[in-house]
C-alpha cells in the first residue's frame, strides 16, 4: 500500500486545521463571544492537539490497521458501518460548507458576474482528479505548496499590522454566550478526525509525531494571530466582515498605491479550499469503500458528485443558511464523532490486547 510520510501527514493536518477558520468563522464567533472568541478558538485548538495525541497513541497501538478495522473489531461490523455512515454525512456537510464559504467569498471578491457553473466545474474537476490520483500525489502536491500557503498567510498578517487599531477588549462576554458560541461552531473544528480515517495510509515514527505537532503549532499560532488582528482592526464591526483573511488587508488605504494586495489572500484561499475539499473528498471515498467494500473509489466519487451537484443546484442555501442549519445538528455530530469516538479509541489502547502487543 502506498503510504504518506510524516511530513506529508503534518502538511495535510496543517491544511485541515485552516479549514473553515480563516474566512467567516471569526465574525460568526464574534456575534456570540465578541473578542473572547479568541479563547474559544484557543480552547478548541487545544482540543485538536488532544485529539492528535490520541491519534498518535492509536497509531502506535495499531500501526498497520485501518480505523475501520479497529472499530469493527472492537464494536462489531454493524456499529462500524453506522459510524462510518455518520462520518460520511458529516464530511459531506463539511465539504458543502467549505465549498459554499469559498463560493460566496470568490463571488464577492473576484468573480462579480461569473456563472455559478464555473465554480462547480473547477471544484469538481480538480478535486475529483486529485482523488483519482491517490493520496500520495495529493499529499505531495500539498507538501509542494504548503510553505507558499504559509508564506501568503504570514504576508497577509504582516500587512495587516498597518491597520492595527488597538487590542480588543477581552473578558467582556457572559459565560453562557461564551460556551454557546463554542458549542454552536464545534463542527468548524476537529478536522484531525480525518487523520484517524487515513491512519492505515500514514507512516509515523516518534520523530514524525514531533514534526506533526510542530507544523500544527505553527498553523495554530497563525490562526490565533489572525483572530487577534481581525478583532483589533474591526472591533465592534467585526461581525460584518465575513472574509477575515482578506478584509484585514483590504481595508487599508496605505496599500492602495501598491495595488490590490488582497489578491494574495484570494489566491491563498483558492489553494486552501481546493486542498481541503480534495482531502475531505478522498476520505469520503475511503469511508464509502469501507461501507460498500465491493464498490471502489470511483463509485464513491460518482455518489458524491451526484449528491453534491444535486444539492447545490436544487437548494438555494448559501453558507450562512448552511451554517445556521449546521449549528442546529452538527454540534451533536461533532461531539460524537470528533470527540467521543477518539476517546473511545483511546480506551481501546489502554486495555486489552492490541496489534503491537500481539506482535
Amino acid at each position, binding site marked *: 500500500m502506498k503510504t504518506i510520510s510524516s511530513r506529508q501527514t503534518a502538511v495535510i493536518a496543517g491544511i485541515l486545521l485552516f479549514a473553515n477558520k480563516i474566512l467567516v468563522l471569526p465574525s460568526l464567533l464574534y456575534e456570540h463571544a465578541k473578542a473572547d472568541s479568541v479563547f474559544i478558538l484557543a480552547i478548541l485548538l487545544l482540543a485538536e492537539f488532544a485529539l492528535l495525541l490520541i491519534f498518535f497513541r492509536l497509531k502506535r497501538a495499531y500501526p498497520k490497521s485501518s480505523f475501520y478495522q479497529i472499530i469493527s473489531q472492537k464494536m462489531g461490523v454493524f456499529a462500524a458501518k453506522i459510524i462510518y455512515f455518520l462520518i460520511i454525512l458529516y464530511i459531506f456537510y463539511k465539504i458543502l460548507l467549505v465549498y459554499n464559504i469559498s463560493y460566496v467569498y470568490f463571488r464577492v471578491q473576484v468573480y462579480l458576474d461569473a456563472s455559478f457553473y464555473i465554480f462547480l466545474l473547477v471544484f469538481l474537476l480538480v478535486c475529483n482528479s486529485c482523488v483519482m490520483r491517490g493520496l500520495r500525489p495529493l499529499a505531495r502536491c500539498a507538501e509542494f505548496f504548503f510553505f507558499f500557503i504559509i508564506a501568503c498567510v504570514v504576508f497577509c498578517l504582516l500587512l495587516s499590522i498597518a491597520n492595527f487599531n488597538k487590542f480588543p477588549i477581552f473578558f467582556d462576554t457572559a459565560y453562557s454566550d461564551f460556551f454557546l458560541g463554542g458549542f454552536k461552531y464545534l463542527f468548524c473544528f476537529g478536522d484531525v478526525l480525518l487523520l484517524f480515517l487515513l491512519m492505515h495510509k500514514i507512516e509515523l515514527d516518534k520523530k514524525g509525531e514531533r514534526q506533526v505537532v510542530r507544523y500544527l503549532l505553527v498553523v495554530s499560532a497563525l490562526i490565533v494571530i489572525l483572530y487577534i488582528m481581525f478583532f483589533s482592526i474591526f472591533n465592534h464591526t467585526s461581525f460584518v466582515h465575513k472574509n477575515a483573511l482578506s478584509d484585514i488587508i483590504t481595508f487599508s488605504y496605505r496599500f492602495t498605491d501598491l*495595488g490590490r494586495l488582497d489578491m494574495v489572500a484570494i489566491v491563498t484561499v483558492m489553494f486552501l479550499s481546493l486542498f481541503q475539499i480534495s482531502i475531505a473528498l478522498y476520505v469520503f471515498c475511503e469511508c464509502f469503500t469501507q461501507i460498500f467494500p465491493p464498490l471502489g473509489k470511483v463509485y464513491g466519487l460518482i455518489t458524491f458528485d451526484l449528491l453534491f451537484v444535486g444539492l447545490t443546484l436544487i437548494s438555494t442555501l448559501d453558507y450562512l443558511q448552511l451554517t445556521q442549519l449546521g449549528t442546529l445538528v452538527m454540534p451533536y455530530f461533532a461531539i460524537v464523532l470528533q470527540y467521543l469516538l477518539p476517546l473511545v479509541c483511546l480506551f481501546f489502547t489502554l486495555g486489552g490486547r492490541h496489534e503491537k502487543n500481539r506482535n
Partner: protein
Amino acid sequence: MFFNVEKQLKSIKKQLNSSSDVATRVIQTASSQKVGMIFLRSMINSDLFLNGLCKPISESDERIDIEKLASSLVKTGDIKKIDEKQACDSVINGSVVIIIEGESKMLAVDLQKYPARLPAEPPTSSVIQGPREGFVEDVKTNITLLRRRFYTKDLTIKELRIGKFSQTKIVIAYIKGIADKKVVSEISTRLKQIEVDGVIDSQYIMQFLEKRPHSLFKQVGSIEKPDIVAAKMLEGRVAIIVDGSPIVLTLPFLFLEDVQSSDDYYNSHIYGGFIRVVRIIAVLIALLLPATYISLRIFHSNVTPIKFLVTITNTTKGLPFTPFFEMIFISLLFQILYEVSLRLPSYLGLATSVVGALILGDTGVKAGLISPPGVIIVALAKIALYTVPEQAYQLTILQYLFLFIGGSLGMLGIVGLVIYLITYMASIDSYGAPYLAPFAPRVEKDLKDAILISNTLDMKTRPQSFKNKNITRQK
C-alpha cells in the same frame, strides 16, 4: 569444409542483395594462393584497405593461413575469426571479410570509416565558462568523450542493437559502484524489449523508456554535452548513447534537472543559485503571465490595481477582438514567426525577425488590431520560455492551456490547473525517483542543489531523491 573463394564471395554478395556498393576483390599471392575480400565500398577506409590489407597479402611469398594473416595485419582495426553465417553482418558493419583458399574460417577486419563531424559546442547548451565539447553522431567518439572523463575500470559500457532494419548500436553507460543495479537492469530490460523497424535518433527510444509515454512531461533527460552526462553519472544516473544521435539520454530523470544548467556549477555558487531563481521566475512568467492578464481582463477587473486598469482600458479601447482572442492571435503570430525563423536559412532569419517583431507588431498596434500590453505580455512570456530550452516545447503547450483556462475560468481555473498539474507530476515515478523530488516529497539533503546551490565543500552526499549504491560523494 574448405572454402572456394569465388563461390563464397558470390554467395555472400547474393545474401547482401548484390547491392551496388558491395565490392569484392580476389588477390593471388606470390605462392599462387587465392585470397578473396568482400566489403562495402562506402563504409571502409580505402587507404587502410590498400596499404594495410591488400599490400601485405599480395606481397606475401609463402602460403598464408588464417592465424598468420591475423597476426601480420598490424595497421588495421579489430580482427575477428568468423564463420560463414557471420560474414554478412560483418560486412554490413564496415569490416572487410577475408576468405582464404583452403581455410574453413574467415577473417573480419574492422576498417570502418564514414563521415563524422568533430565535437563542437552544441547550439542549445552554450556556456560562458566551462567545457565546450558536445556529443557528435558517432557513438565511438561519444564513448571516447566519456572515457576521457573517467579513468577508472568502474565505468561500464554495455552495448546492444535495436531496430529490425537499422540494427542501431545502443550503449548503456554507468559507473559501477554508484549506479543502482536495479535501475540499470530495468533500463536494459526495457531497451531489449523494444521492437521497432529502426532507431534513427535517441528520441525514438525515449518514449519506450518513459513510464508514462503519453504524458506531456519529459521523463528522460536529454543532454548534448559530455561534462553534464559525466556529472550525472557521478550522481548515480545511467546514460544511454544511441549511434547516429548527438543527444545522450540519462535516467532517472527529475523535473528540476532542466532548470539546472552546467553554467551554474562553473560560476560562483551564489550567482548560480541566483540565476536558477531567475530561471524559475521566468518559467512562472512564461506560464502564468498571459493567463493571469487575460483572467484579470475578463473576470477580475475589480481586483486589478486602478492605475493598471486605467492604462489597460485606454490602450484596449476600440479593439475589434475579445481579450481572449487577442491573446491567442498574438501568441499564434509569435509561434508562426518562431517556426519560420527556425526553418529559414540564417541570413533570412534576421529579416524575418525584423519583419515579425517590428513591422507586424508595430503595425498591428497602430492599426488598432492588437494592444501594446498584449504584445508586451506575450513577447515577455514567449522569451521567458527559452530560459529552459529543454522544456520549451512542453511549456509552450502548457502556456496555451493556461491561456485557455485563464480566459474561460479565471483565477480559480488557473489555481485549479496548477494543482491538477502538480498532482499529476507528483504521481510520476522515474525509475524509483519521484518526479518532483526534492520538493515533493521533500528530500532535505538534496535541497542543497535544488534552487540555491550550496558550496561544493558542503555537498558531501550524492542525491538521495533516487537510488544510489554509494551515498558518499566526498569526505
